[in-house]
């Protein structure tokens, strides 16, 4: 009887143990928790893999979570904004955060990050960056300043690029410059031997002696490229001691003077700011302009696919080339500008740890290289340089040379607004409404009356 009881009890225990084990084994399946992370991204044909890589990263993170035995799984929902530029997108996103409808993760132009930080919308990342060296440890140290606000790091660099003056070698040769002179321009620019005014002079020769109608063209809306000219003439727009906006009248006047001389010499068209982006590109890539002030990604996005510029390095450099923003005078410092796009995480996300790890995977060298080579943007990690695909994309390797002298737009929350004022002043000069001096006055008056904490020298 006792034996029977013991046997029955043992059997019951075994059944219970087996059932429990089976239940426990099945538990993660039933208890699996899907964490939805919303990603805000601008619809941008020049970088579809910025959100695309985050979606791919979710797969990697989920495998990692599975291996860890975590019940959580990440799902990324992309919220696309139709904004026409990163400035409009940032303004829209600030409103979205303001009404409490912000995403968990967002993609932004780096100079806006402190505007989000000032209003408490973005997560401080210093501790996370230290915690996950496998994800963030090798990102180029030169890129991190673009993700910083006064009290810490608030974003993760997603890419970089280089802004330059593209030029049409064929037109320069037609204007009478010999091939050696034309080919030596990039080196001369980097050494400080080629000056901003010499660019205008060369452009004038092209306009006077060839059929080309334009000398120098630049973007027709608010953006970073023309800031290169101001940086060449010494304006960095932020006081390094205080972090406040800084406007120096003489330096502003000097930079506006370059635009003024360009228009006066009929090298920069008076209606540059009234023209459409595509029309400007067409003028340059079809041989109707000597210089085009823009960025390296334009080759992959537009020049190669749309205008059939040679994709072979040798063939390309036979008739086309680019120079850094030249020095204001001989022996001065040349300048280029890089404008990193960054990933950032909302301060109120419920899963900051998962969001950081997700962006860590999105910043993986192979995924970032996918973005870099398909859109002609520069990578963020040295290991990408060893990727044969990256090495094959010669514009990236060539443009990387410019990063030695590159600058950023200032990470000041009001710089976006200041840039709008600067752009209006350039428009004023080019359309003949302002002189260089009046343009500097206009910028100082407008900035002083509409922005806060502007230091004027």
């Amino acid at each position, binding site marked *: 009887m006792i034996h029977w009881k013991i046997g029955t009890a043992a059997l019951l225990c075994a059944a219970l143990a087996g059932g429990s084990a089976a239940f426990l084994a099945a538990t993660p399946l039933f208890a699996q928790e899907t964490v939805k992370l919303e990603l805000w991204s601008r619809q941008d044909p020049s970088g579809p893999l910025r959100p695309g890589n985050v979606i791919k990263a979710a797969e990697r993170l989920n495998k990692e979570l599975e291996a860890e035995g975590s019940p959580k799984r990440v799902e990324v929902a992309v919220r696309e904004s139709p904004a026409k530029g990163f400035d409009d997108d940032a*303004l829209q996103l600030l409103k979205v955060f303001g009404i409490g409808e912000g995403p968990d993760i967002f993609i932004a132009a780096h100079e806006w990050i402190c505007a989000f930080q000032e209003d408490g919308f973005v997560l401080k990342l210093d501790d996370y960056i230290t915690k996950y060296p496998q994800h963030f440890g090798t990102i180029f140290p030169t890129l991190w300043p673009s993700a910083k606000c006064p009290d810490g790091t608030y974003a993760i660099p997603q890419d970089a690029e280089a802004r330059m003056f593209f030029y049409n070698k064929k037109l320069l040769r037609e204007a009478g410059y010999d091939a050696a002179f034309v080919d030596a321009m990039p080196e001369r620019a980097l050494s400080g031997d080629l000056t901003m005014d010499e660019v205008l002079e060369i452009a004038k020769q092209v306009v006077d002696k060839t059929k080309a109608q334009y000398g120098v063209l630049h973007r027709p809306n608010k953006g970073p490229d023309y800031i290169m000219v101001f940086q060449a003439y010494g304006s960095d727009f932020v006081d390094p001691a205080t972090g406040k906006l800084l406007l120096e009248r003489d330096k502003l006047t000097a930079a506006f003077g370059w635009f003024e001389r360009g228009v006066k010499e009929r090298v920069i068209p008076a209606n540059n700011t*009234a023209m459409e982006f595509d029309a400007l590109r067409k003028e340059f890539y079809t041989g109707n302009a000597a210089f085009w002030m823009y960025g390296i990604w334009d080759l992959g996005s537009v020049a190669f696919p749309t205008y059939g510029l040679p994709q072979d390095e040798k063939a390309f450099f036979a008739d086309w080339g680019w120079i850094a923003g030249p020095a204001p005078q001989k022996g001065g410092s040349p300048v280029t500008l890089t404008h990193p796009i960054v990933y950032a995480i909302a301060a109120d996300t419920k899963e900051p740890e998962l969001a950081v790890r997700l962006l860590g995977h999105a910043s993986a060298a192979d995924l970032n290289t996918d973005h870099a080579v398909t859109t002609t943007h520069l990578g963020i990690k040295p290991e990408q340089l060893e990727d044969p695909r990256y090495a094959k994309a010669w514009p990236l390797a060539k443009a990387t040379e410019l990063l030695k002298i590159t600058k950023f737009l200032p990470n000041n929350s009001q710089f976006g607004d200041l840039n709008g004022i600067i752009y209006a002043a350039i428009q004023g000069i080019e*359309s003949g409404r302002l002189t260089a001096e009046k343009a500097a006055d206009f910028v100082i008056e407008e900035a002083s*009356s509409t922005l806060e904490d502007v230091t004027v020298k």
Partner: protein
Amino acid sequence: MTSIADELTIERRGHSGSAARRRTNFVIFLGPAVVLTVLFFVVPVVIDIAVSFTDLSRSLRISEFTTEQYEKVFRTDRRLSQVIGLTFIYVFGTLAIFNVTFGLILAVTTTAIRNVSGSFFRGVWLLPRMSPSVLYILLWLWAVSPTEAGLVNQVLMQAFGLDAPLDLLTSAPIALIIISNGFIGASMGMIIFTSAIRGIPEHLFHAAAVDGAGTFAKIRFITLPALRWPISFVTIYQTLSLLVSFEYILLLTKGGPFYDTTVYALYVYRRAFESGQYGYGAALALFLIVIGVVVALIGWRFFDMERLLQRPRIEVH
């Protein structure tokens, strides 16, 4: 036979019935208009006033109530006087050249010719108003394109031998916004004036003809006096409409070059939505409301609109 008391009761009942009907009619006929006016005019104005006393900025957060926005309007905004001056030129120019004068010319000429031709030309002039604004401005952008492909330049270069293409967007932006808006505005005046001209009894023209009046005399002494009220209405209505409209300007010139075509309403839009200064934009918008009300009252007085709304003294059967 009913007593006086009964008659009084019937009268009272009748009166009370009629009062109830009046109240019902008020609710049915005026109710929707009152609700719409409150919802889309009074409430926005109250919100605008409230926002103008805050520091509401790009993240839609209010940290304090302040009169700072009004100080900016009166003290520090140096663009404002230029913007107001331009708005005056734009409104007055569009109104004087197109919305009233050209509308009147179209109405007079299209009613003076054969009915079929008149209807055709009126139809043509209605096309700009019927076109979607973006499409209409895209056509303008092609017409005034500063390249040789632009319509105006094609005509000037091929028919008149012009050497280099004109860039009207840079050299004559104010004229362009007046013309592009005027082409749309003229059609409204045209319709109203045409309708008014059609309402003039035919026999007056025959009588004038018998008296030896020519075409211009008929217009001068019969048509124009009959159009006084429509002209007054179109002037006031279109002034208010032009004061607050900016979409065609935004699409055509973006308010530029520089601030050359930034009229007041566009300036408010740029400050509020392009710079994220919502509090300041609200303060500026409040002045636009005040300007609109003042202009409407002046117009009302100047054109003696009260008389227009009086009952006709003669009942025509």
